[in-house]
């Protein structure tokens, strides 16, 4: 039966049908829905892990113990999981292990545009890349067979447009072959140098076997496919770019579609290039396939005609390959940009307004609160990576201790658990005069509300052990821990000010659940008393999307306002009621 599935849903379905038994992931756009969908299958034990490294290690442990396993993450998450990734290539697996990694060309929701195919090559782990939901499902299943056959984890690479597009996928039944037997084998699973030396030889042999597979069997089973049409133009491509190319060029080109992007075949590519007059390599981000083509001595056109940045499209391919431009219409009007903003009622707003009043330097982190960078709040100085705010603040304060009482780090609850706590240990251990503010909104917000170790619920919404942030901070050696309500502006100002004046490591927990959580009860919307409003625009300084100026007076949009009362605390005339 065919169903309209999101790419991520189709991956989850494929894993399910292939008998996956254990899944552990950390949420990250555009990968999150894979594990959310998995959590609905009772046959799979699924979990949110504190970070991607933990998730990969859980999946590894499960695979060695004999269960087909999965871990999923976004591209930057694979950086965090890189340590177990590289050595799991040496140990191999017992039951199959699939690592789902979703890249984000165009950076719809990411801090960089890194190409995770390099990880496949660097760790010598086979990587499959589907182009639509049907392939997401098929490749997820195939990945388990390949994992067990070649005794290696398999990387399943997605990109935003594949993860977040719905298309038809052929759905089947689950086949569960049960737990595989675990046999103790330290030469295989204990990577001390003596054992690892032997295993490295195995890895290199495995790559050669996999190349042979890509040249022959993968062509027979359709993973790598050749389609000859007009041979004036040849296209070597993979993933979503295949869809763009087919739409742009149709029968005007011949195609070599690579479902396996690492390792890459040699003979298959050479034979294809011999048949075609001009061959283009169509791939987003880096020149991964193109470099391979050049290395094996075939002439192709790639990045010299296209781009290393952003997404490809059928329009771009038509333009470059066929020289065709499309006619389009344009409205003769200046359209102001509309970037995302902190939601109305967002607890982070009051906190960032307080930081603005305190005029501090803010070492920021990854989450909804990164939007604190936007005007009119504009309260973020650096954002690097998950957890980087806390250790970055320590470094800033080492460099310029005189400004330490004018600098803070802000980090969300989930991000703090992910990798912020190690930075805080550094601060405590090295007695750093640093103030870390944990924005505890009781959920992983940016990725669409996932539970995490601080929320008291697991992935299925069942009660679970909750990390006490206060106790955790105290346990690592922070003696000054404060809790504030970010809806209370005076309390925030006084408490954070006090923490900054301590000249000692301190943590302020800004605690208020995300306003979008269904369990949160809101006050009725506020209204502006137009008679009292003096048009001073103080209420505009918090950048609330529910507040605007209409006919010279402030106005509150009743469809958006959640009655948080942050704006009313700013109004000196009591005009917000």
């Amino acid at each position, binding site marked *: 039966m065919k169903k*309209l599935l999101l790419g991520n849903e189709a991956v989850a379905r494929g894993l399910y049908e292939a008998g996956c038994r254990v899944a552990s992931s950390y949420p990250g756009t555009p990968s999150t829905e894979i594990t959310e969908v998995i959590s609905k299958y009772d046959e799979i034990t699924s979990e949110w892990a504190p970070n991607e490294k933990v998730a990969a290690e859980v999946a590894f442990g499960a695979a060695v113990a004999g269960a087909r396993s999965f871990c999923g993450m976004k591209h930057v998450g694979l950086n965090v999981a890189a340590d177990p990734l590289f050595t799991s290539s040496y140990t191999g697996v017992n039951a199959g292990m699939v690592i789902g990694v979703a890249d984000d060309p165009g950076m719809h929701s990411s801090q960089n545009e890194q190409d995770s195919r390099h990880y496949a090559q660097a760790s010598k782990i086979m990587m499959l890349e589907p182009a639509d939901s049907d392939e997401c499902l098929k490749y997820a299943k195939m990945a388990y067979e390949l994992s067990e056959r070649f005794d290696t984890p398999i990387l399943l690479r997605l990109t935003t447009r594949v993860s977040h597009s719905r298309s038809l996928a052929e759905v089947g039944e689950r086949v569960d072959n049960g737990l595989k037997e675990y046999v103790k084998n330290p030469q295989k699973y204990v990577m001390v140098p003596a054992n690892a030396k032997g295993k490295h030889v195995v890895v290199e042999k495995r790559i050669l076997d996999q190349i042979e597979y890509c040249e022959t069997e993968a062509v027979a089973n359709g993973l790598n496919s050749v389609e000859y049409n007009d041979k004036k133009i040849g296209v070597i491509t993979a993933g979503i770019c295949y869809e763009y190319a087919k739409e742009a060029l149709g029968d005007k080109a011949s195609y070599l579609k690579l479902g396996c992007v690492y390792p890459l075949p040699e003979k298959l590519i050479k034979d294809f290039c011999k048949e075609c007059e001009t061959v283009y390599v169509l791939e987003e981000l880096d020149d991964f396939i193109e470099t391979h083509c050049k290395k094996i001595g075939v002439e192709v056109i790639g990045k010299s005609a296209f781009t290393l940045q952003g997404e490809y499209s059928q329009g771009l391919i038509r333009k470059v390959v066929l020289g065709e431009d499309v006619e389009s219409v344009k409205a003769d009007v200046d359209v102001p940009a509309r970037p995302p903003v902190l939601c109305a009622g967002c607890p982070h707003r009051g906190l960032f307004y307080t930081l603005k009043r305190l005029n501090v330097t803010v070492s920021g982190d990854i989450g909804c609160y990164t939007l604190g960078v936007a005007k009119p709040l504009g309260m973020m100085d650096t954002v690097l990576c998950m957890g980087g705010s806390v250790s970055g603040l320590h470094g800033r304060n080492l460099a310029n201790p005189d400004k330490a009482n004018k600098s803070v780090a802000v980090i969300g609850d989930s991000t703090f658990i992910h990798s912020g706590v190690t930075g805080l240990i550094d601060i405590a251990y090295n007695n750093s005069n640093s103030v870390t503010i944990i924005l505890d909104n009781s959920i992983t917000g940016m990725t669409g509300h996932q539970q995490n170790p601080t929320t008291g619920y697991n992935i299925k919404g069942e009660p679970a052990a909750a990390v006490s942030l206060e106790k955790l901070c105290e346990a690592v050696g922070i003696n000054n821990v404060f809790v504030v309500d970010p809806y209370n502006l005076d309390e925030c100002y006084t408490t954070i000010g006090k923490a900054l004046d301590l000249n000692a490591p301190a943590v302020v927990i800004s605690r208020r659940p995300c306003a979008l959580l269904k369990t949160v009860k809101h006050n009725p919307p506020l209204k502006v008393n137009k008679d009292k409003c003096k048009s001073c625009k103080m209420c505009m300084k918090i950048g609330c999307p529910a507040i605007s100026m209409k006919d010279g007076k402030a106005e509150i949009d009743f469809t958006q306002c959640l009655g948080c009362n942050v704006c009313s605390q700013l109004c000196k005339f009591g005009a917000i009621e």
Partner: protein
Amino acid sequence: MNKSIMIVGVGGQGTLLASRILGSALLSKGYDVKVSEVHGMSQRGGSVVTYVKYGEKVYSPVIGEGEADLILAFEQLEAARWLSCLKKDGKVVVNTQKIDPMSVVIGDSVYPDGVIDAVKNAGATVVELDALPLAVEAGSPKAVNVVLIGAMAKNTDIDKEIWLDAVKACVPGKFLELNLKAFELGYSN
């Protein structure tokens, strides 16, 4: 011949539900369908776009410049922002609601006048409606998305019954009555 529809609006207006209803209606007509959404950061009050493509066989899930047959805009400015994706003879169904971007709210830029006229002058066929009062009439300001789906439904060659089934398939039971009313109001206005 494949058709391409874009649903554009402001994060939080419910464009994802609208695209799901549309996808469901097209699927029951037997088309190959692709729906492309962007999740994550852009949901937070930013400009959002969903692509819906259907026909005998659809490859690319996205819509580029000059490729859309119809743009369903949940907000005026978003209609203008994405207009370059419209085909020369394309149609725009636009909600006349205005939502100020943050740059306008804080006075860094202005919400331009005559947006819908500019869209018309560019050569697009425009169908306007004020969906918010209709949604309130149906029972909730949040039903703007289904009002607009109703308005768009009238501008397609798909039977009303199929649309109604799609609404039923995509909306949770307790909100069904409200949403069916919202659809009717959009369809008939």
